[in-house]
């Protein structure tokens, strides 16, 4: 009798882990490695947030909370959504989870029946299709053109919707492209969704605070409030407040769905850390200047990285609106041979050779269901980025 469940076979092996493992091994062997693969801010959590966590511990806030989160944090989420997007939520429409990932997990497992289709614009964070598969749903991947700024066009969405469609999942701004939708662009998509009342909508706004040059990413419900009874708005404190390790994400959704998510969570993990919840209250309601300071640094780095990558032969890099990633195309390098004698056949051979020959670690596009590209995270120091991009330029220039 086999001992492991079929559901795990449906999850794709992590393509990023192989690359990260290799980078770690090279580093351990003494090589000078620059990691541009990480999906987290290089900033530390703001001091006022840490102090709030410590104060909570000292007050004895080390006990179970309600599964869906403390009243204080659920209220803080309501206030933040009101302030940022002008949307009114009540605390019972909010659920606090262990990272945005658990929000996705809770929402999809609470709704997907076997065979239900979920539309996911690609490039995408691979956890979306994986969690859909885990829930026995069917990911429907819709590729977005680089020429459209990696954004889904309304006619593509319309064409992908079938009677089996259960979800439309949007990540705005997007990991790995940094592409973001403004209100007008989103409205074109919500007009399509208005015609399909049986489709749930999931908007992952985790990078929502990270946009540059005055660009303001919109969220589904501010452009189309009539979708409210079937939209999950997901966000968290990981990216905006450099709090990845604290593991706090949240959902705003109709009460009926929140109740189901609460039920699932009560049987899988219960509440998330009480200490982290107290920290998140301070992050959401305390001073917000940190985000601006961090955003300045990200913008400066993005501009430098895009410029330097576009100077590398064979690469083409869009300047995205947000997040802390760029997603250059490397198809101009395919068929060439590196200085180390490796023939570049695809994005994976490119990233592997780049790592082995120059010590720069990136993630190849296939890991985001979009080959021919690679992802660079610029959530690292300016000096590191400059050195890494210089190495990439040399790597590309030395190909023949």
């Amino acid at each position, binding site marked *: 009798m086999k001992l492991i469940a079929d559901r795990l076979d449906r999850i794709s092996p992590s393509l990023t882990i192989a690359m990260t493992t290799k980078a770690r091994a090279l580093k351990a062997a003494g090589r000078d490695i620059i990691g541009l693969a990480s999906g987290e801010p290089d900033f530390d959590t703001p001091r006022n947030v840490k102090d709030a966590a410590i104060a909570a511990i000292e007050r004895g806030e080390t006990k179970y909370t309600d599964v869906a989160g403390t009243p204080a944090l659920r209220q803080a989420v309501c206030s933040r959504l009101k302030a940022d997007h002008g949307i009114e939520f009540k605390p019972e429409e909010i659920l606090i989870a262990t990272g945005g990932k*658990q929000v996705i997990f809770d929402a999809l497992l609470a709704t997907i029946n076997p065979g239900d289709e979920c539309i996911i614009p690609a490039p995408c964070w691979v956890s979306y299709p994986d969690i859909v598969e885990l829930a026995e749903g069917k990911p429907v991947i819709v590729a977005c053109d680089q020429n459209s700024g990696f954004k889904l066009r309304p006619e593509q969405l319309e064409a992908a919707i079938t009677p089996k469609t259960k979800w439309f999942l949007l990540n705005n701004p997007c990991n790995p492209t940094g592409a973001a939708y403004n209100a007008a662009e989103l409205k074109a998509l919500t007009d399509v969704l208005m015609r399909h009342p049986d489709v749930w909508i999931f908007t992952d706004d985790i990078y929502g605070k990270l946009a540059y040059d005055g660009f303001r990413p919109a969220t589904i419900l501010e452009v189309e409030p009539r979708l409210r009874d*079937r939209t999950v708005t997901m966000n968290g404190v990981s990216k905006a407040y450099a709090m990845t390790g604290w593991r706090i994400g949240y959902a705003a959704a109709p009460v009926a769905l929140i109740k189901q998510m609460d039920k699932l969570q009560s049987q899988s993990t219960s509440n998330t850390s009480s200490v982290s919840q107290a920290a998140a209250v301070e992050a959401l309601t305390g001073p917000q200047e940190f985000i601006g300071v961090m955003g300045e640094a990200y913008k400066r780095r993005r501009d430098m990285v895009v410029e330097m990558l576009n100077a590398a032969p064979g690469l083409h890099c869009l300047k995205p609106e947000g997040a802390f990633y760029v997603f250059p195309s490397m198809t101009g390098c395919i068929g060439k041979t590196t200085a180390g004698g490796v023939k570049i056949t695809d994005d994976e051979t490119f990233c592997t050779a780049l790592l082995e020959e120059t010590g720069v670690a990136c993630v190849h596009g296939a890991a985001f269901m979009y080959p021919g590209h690679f992802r660079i995270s610029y959530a690292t120091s300016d000096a590191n980025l400059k050195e890494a991009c210089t190495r990439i330029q040399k790597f590309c220039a030395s190909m023949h």
Partner: protein
Amino acid sequence: MPDLAQRLNNVQVSPSAAMTAKAREMRARGINVISLANGEPDFASPPHAIEAAYQAALKGDTKYPPQGGTPALKAAIARKFKRDNNLDYGPDEIIVGNGGKQVIFNGFMATIDPGDEVVIPSPFWVSYADMAKVAGGVPVTVSCPQNNGFKPRPEDIDAAITPRTKWVMLNFPGNPTGAVPSRTELAAIGEVLLRHPHVWILSDDMYEHLLYDGHKFSTIAEVTPGLKDRTLTVNGCSKTYAMTGWRIGFGGAPARLIKGMFNMQGQATAGVSSIGQAAAAAALDGPQELVEERRAIYEQRRDMVVEMLNAAPGVTCHKPEGAFYVFPNLAGCLGKTSKGGRTIESDTDFVAALLEEKHVACVQGAAYGLSPHMRVSYATDTASITEACGRIQEFCRELR
């Protein structure tokens, strides 16, 4: 609203969480509720754990933690298993989850295919059955008679195992009864399990350090070493160190199961709060005197609660060996009417009337698979317990 998944149709919200939430809500309305519903120590987390959390936050240990646990915490867990249980687990045989609950959830989701059976000695922590159902499994309960001290009989477990059995659950000291078999009794269960090599065994040892009257703890993988390569040994910091809010549970198991659980956790929540992990490592490695001091206090409370409940007309309370629960029988109260005019026809009626009229929250035995009982947690301060037991006595005296 688009429809929801059938997966959760037969799953209930954790009843103790529901009762606790209700008590909290009544308290927020200014009602003096004493909750004996929750399995949560009333003590503070150990000072050295708090200090470790503080230091971790200050030094910027606020990044994504490794998905299966930090190396430091896994090393501390390995030392704990060796020290307390004489069990050897390597780093690839240990996983850290958001509470023991997630460790069990991961174990089930990684192994259970639709229709697989999970054998659960009853009365039992109800989440076992609900988690099995979320994973598509079928809970099969084995009744543990009160005249056997609520302990499972080996022959009953043997009879419940079929070719479809995937798991056998063991939980000693048990929630909700506090029952603890002797080493000899456990070995007899081990003998049965040795004869069924297709079955995984889950030993939930969360209450390991809460044993009274000189009882000694043993766990199945230690008592019957031949079972270790198919046993998941679950433990955590919540009960032993009064760290419920931090959400740190862990499991030791063969590497192939841990790998499946790791993959599952990667899709559900990723890693556990970095701050919580630092606190947990300190709790496991630090001075252990608090554990014994608190155990002695729990033992005094148990004696008092059992005595006071047995003085309530219609209630008979067995004195358990461990945990911080008693599970009194309410048969003598059925068919009566409360002072507030509520008819008591079941344990569910009893706890509802008790909460409304005397503002004491307990959980009905039905939630644990055995009626007419209720679970009374004495993990709250002695004064509150005394007051609550007084109110229960009064409630019972007033029944007509």
